[in-house]
């Protein structure tokens, strides 16, 4: 936890199921400037793979994924 990633915006997508975490992430990333970082928190177990696919397809970069007990925290850098 020492090397925490700096982020510019937080999105709470906990409790939401597919496809809402992706849709909300897309919307939030659109409000960022290039190279800014969005922190997204989810509880949807499918979001781990889905977020990776979404990022690959849209050309954004997932800097880090933290897995907690039933939660996932993504740090996404707007790269496109």
């Amino acid at each position, binding site marked *: 936890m020492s090397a925490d990633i700096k982020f510019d915006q937080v999105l709470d997508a906990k*409790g*939401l*199921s*597919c*496809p*809402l975490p*992706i*849709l909300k*992430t*897309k919307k939030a990333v659109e409000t960022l400037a290039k190279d800014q970082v969005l922190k997204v928190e989810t509880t*949807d177990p499918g979001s781990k793979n889905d977020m990776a*696919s*979404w990022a690959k*397809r*849209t*050309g954004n970069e997932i800097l880090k994924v933290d897995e907690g007990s039933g939660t996932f925290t993504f740090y996404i850098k707007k790269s496109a």
Partner: protein
Amino acid sequence: MAQKKMTIIASKGTLDMAYPPLILATTAAAMDVDVTIFFTFYGLEIIKKDNADRLKVSPLGNPAMPMPMPIPTLVSSLPGMEAMATAMMKSMCKKHGVASIGTLLDLAKESGVKLIACQMTMDLFGYKKESIVDGVEVGGAASWLDIAADSQINLFI
């Protein structure tokens, strides 16, 4: 990377079958895919005004539907069973954070998903353009084929 294109034919108008086209369409749009949904036959129910959140699901003829207890087919046909199954699915969706059909339809429109209503089915069922939600174009098989021929993904649901 050239923009990918996808079309979906939405042909079913039950609560359960309205989900796949809208989930895939909104997700594809979020992944920078250019999406078109062609609503035909019962799929038109999804885009009738004020109808998206009134779609129903029936256990009748749907043996795969999970129920709290096994329900004989004859019982499924009784009055109130459809309403019960619909209420059950809606409460399940709410509990699991699944968006309503109305919300997904709004999100689809908001994210630029192109919606086309099948002219022939509208005429067949006697639906007027005014009874369909705003922002929907009307077209026929050729309209869909024209877009589908240039799309990488074409689904019939």
